[in-house]
């Protein structure tokens, strides 16, 4: 009885707080939904409605004209390029980072501290810092103006390694020992034991890599210059540059461009919204 009282007391105590926090949450939700709402409705508005000084909250005379004009550009081709680049970067990053993360978390080896420290120091580095050298390197490798020039540097960024190392800390060492005793080789251990355990981590990393490579429009801009390689981010930026106030057209592009990212999110979110457990922080 006593404990029940305590619980109900604590519920009552937090009552007004909960109401207040709900109010704030809903207000913020509006701030977050609104830009997206504005993109979607904007993509169906005509020029007059777009530039109206008194905003038109809902398109009075919805038009698909913006999409018609968008598809006069090879928008689907852009989309495909973006998907290709992001998926390739995502796949390669997940594989290399999962392997490296496992090694850093679960193996004792010479130079471990050094390697890990360098990864840590480099993981937040913005690519702008090395753009010109990267450009020269791609030119040297004869990769400039190919999608690899965008994919490879993305995979090289060490953030994924750090993340996967954190996840791999959760792998029980006894389990690894046990399968080793059973005679499993390193690769089998990795595929049968490690991968299933770090799956939520891979899910989180996949989404992170997909989105950041999708959004990295400046790297795309300087690495790709022929129109067959144009991506959707670049395409929208170009539309904005040429017709900066044709918001209807740009919003149509934006709406189209969001579809694959939302799809990726939905595909991978179950991995990490369910049982996410990160390993403790170790050096």
């Amino acid at each position: 009885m006593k404990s029940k009282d305590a619980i109900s007391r604590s519920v009552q105590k937090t009552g007004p707080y909960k109401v207040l926090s709900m109010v704030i949450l809903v207000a913020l939700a509006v701030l977050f939904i609104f830009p997206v709402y504005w993109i979607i409705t904007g993509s169906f508005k005509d020029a007059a409605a777009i530039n109206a000084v008194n905003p038109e909250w809902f398109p009075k005379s919805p038009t698909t004209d913006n999409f018609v004009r968008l598809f006069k550009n090879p928008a689907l081709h852009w989309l495909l390029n973006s998907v290709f680049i992001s998926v390739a970067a995502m796949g390669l990053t997940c594989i290399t980072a999962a392997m490296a993360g496992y090694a850093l978390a679960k193996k004792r080896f010479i130079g471990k501290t050094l390697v890990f420290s360098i990864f840590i120091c480099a993981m937040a580095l913005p690519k702008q810092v090395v753009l010109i050298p990267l450009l020269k390197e791609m030119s040297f490798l004869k990769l400039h103006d190919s999608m690899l020039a965008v994919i490879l540097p993305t995979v090289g960024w060490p953030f994924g390694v750090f993340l996967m190392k954190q996840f791999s800390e959760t792998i029980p060492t006894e389990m690894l020992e046990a399968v080793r005793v059973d005679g499993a080789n390193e690769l089998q251990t990795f595929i049968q034991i490690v991968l299933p355990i770090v799956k939520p981590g891979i899910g989180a990393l996949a989404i992170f890599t997909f989105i950041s490579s999708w959004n990295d429009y400046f790297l795309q801009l300087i690495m790709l210059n022929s129109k067959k390689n144009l991506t959707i981010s670049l395409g929208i930026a170009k539309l904005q540059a040429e017709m900066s106030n044709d918001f209807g057209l740009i919003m149509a592009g934006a709406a189209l461009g969001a579809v694959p990212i939302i799809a990726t999110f939905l595909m991978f979110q179950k991995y990490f919204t369910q049982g996410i457990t990160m390993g403790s922080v170790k050096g």
Partner: protein
Amino acid sequence: MKKALALVLAGTTVVCSLAGCGSSAKTEATAAPAAETTAAQAAAETAAGAAGTESPAADITLWTYPIGSFKDADTVNGFIASFNEKYPDIHVNVEYLDYTSGDDQVTAAIEAGTTPDVIMEGPERLVSNWGAKGKMVDLADLWDDDASKDIAATSEAIVAACKSPDGIYYEYPLCMTTHCMAINYELFEKADALQYINEDRTWTTENFGKALKALKDSGVDTTGVVYCGGQGGDQGTRALAMNLYSAQFTDADHTKWTMNSDAGLKGLTQLVDWTKDGSLSYDAGAVASDELQLFANGTTAMTFCWNASNEANYASSVAFTPYAVAFPSDDGKPELCGGIWGFGIFDNGDAAKIDASKIFIDYLCDDETQGPVSVKSTGFFPVRASFGNAYAGTEDEERMAVYSTFMPYLSDYYNVTAGWAEQRTAWWNLLQQIFGGTDVKTATDEYVAACDAATAAAK
């Protein structure tokens, strides 16, 4: 193989020029490598002109900035198709740049060694940027006597703008215009402000001030917006500030920046005063395209970024009459910034491609039928006097006639001054500072010092 072919072609040229059917000026080349080029090109022209059989073969790439319809794939592909009827073996691949990210792409391409062969823009990029940095090919053989005379007949300033200080031509121009401003005719009419504009579409600074007041009194909330959120369309704000009290932007030799002269300071101060009393607005978050949109919506009564091509672009989307006028000037004699667009060739070290590029440029600019068509597609005026009125007999004739009256006001093309790129950023930052309350003289002196330093560093 290439050499042999060139020799044969050169031989043909000599024969042709002896027979008087070659373009004589083009065979009078001087340097040895250039001779090869010229010969090959002239020969190719004659050969193709004669039978259309022996056309040089090359794959070339053209990058265009959005100059009139040269941003439009249908138009450009049409040009290439007609070019290929004459030269079936030169394949032209086109990429379209925009003014926001185009320079970054070209820089990246230069550093990565993936530059296009032909690029279309104006002297500030072709001559004083990439040309001055040794990335471009000398186009002397396109500038033969005939072309030089023809273009000089339009304006000596064009010829001067297309070559470097040491006399090397890095641009072969196609078209030109003068940038002006435009007013919303109906709003001016309603405000009874049309009286301040002369019949020849010029006006004085004093009358401009009166017009602003009249507009305000008639209930126009935002008369005009001095945009300074970036470099887009900055020629308009420069021309506005310069003309108010007839200041010069640089000295005559393009070695020093001079907006801190008394006239320049007076003009800038006048702008600040107008924004303070509300007769004009400024927006440090807008560039020309934003301002144009406000004008097109009818929100503002004037735009400072106007020219023939803009009128053509906005003609269908405006519900009023855009009326082009010169920038106001204290003496009533405006000096308008010009735009000169044409082609340059990046030095990719492949003689065959360079030759093919020259043939392509020659075709687009000088071909008797294609030349005027190319010019018309830009919506500007031909640099060649011999093209006469390119718009005669077309639906654009009347509209273009208005803009041709501004041609005599074409000012010195100061855009070729070294340090131009630094200046452009410094300019919109200067405007942001003075509208934000910094003392005009202090800010302008700093701006001039920074620009002069950049000019000195570039030498």
